[in-house]
């Protein structure tokens, strides 16, 4: 989005860039606290699971399950 001169093309692209960053942050947070097996290492359980009451909505928002 910033290729080739290091700047976004316009305000629409800036909003898309911000939404992409937000989506990546929510997904990373959801994967970090999701109870149960790790997505990329199903043989190992998540060592830092969050309570289901607030991990559930976060995981649902990220679509990680």
């Amino acid at each position, binding site marked *: 989005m*910033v290729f080739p001169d*290091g700047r976004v093309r316009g305000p629409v692209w800036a909003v898309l860039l911000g939404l992409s960053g937000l989506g990546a942050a929510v997904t990373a947070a959801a994967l970090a606290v999701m109870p149960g097996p*790790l997505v*990329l*290492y199903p043989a*190992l359980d998540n060592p830092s699971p969050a309570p289901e009451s607030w991990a559930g909505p976060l995981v649902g928002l990220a679509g990680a399950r």
Partner: protein
Amino acid sequence: MLGGGPRTDLTRPASTAIFAAARTPARSPPERPNPTIAALARPFATVLGVSTSVMLVAALLLWARSGFETPPYVFMRGPWPMVAFFATGVTQLASGLVLTIRRPDLPVGPLGLLFAAIVSLGALMNALLAFAEQAASVPLPPAWAAWLPS
């Protein structure tokens, strides 16, 4: 002639036009780098370059100690995915260093270095997981080693 511009000689090869364009000065001069960003580029490249290189070497040594075992990563079968991890880390590190030092005004160089550092951390944790299957004890519990790159 329509447009009134210079006539294009269609009998010349395209390469001639490309070389002619390359010799023509740009209409706007290249942007001067922001002095703060330019001053930070080299220390940033040094810190990330050294830490990424250390992670890649440590990962290679750990993986070799494990007998080139396949880590328990969900997509990995055989040794080639780990080789791809190392190849990606090395190429991104090299291109990120060149771009950050030669063009400190562009964000693509530091972004490449950050990507190289993340890939190298993944390679190191995967190598640690492969080593943990052979060793009696490892410095980091396997669950945490898997959690970091996840």
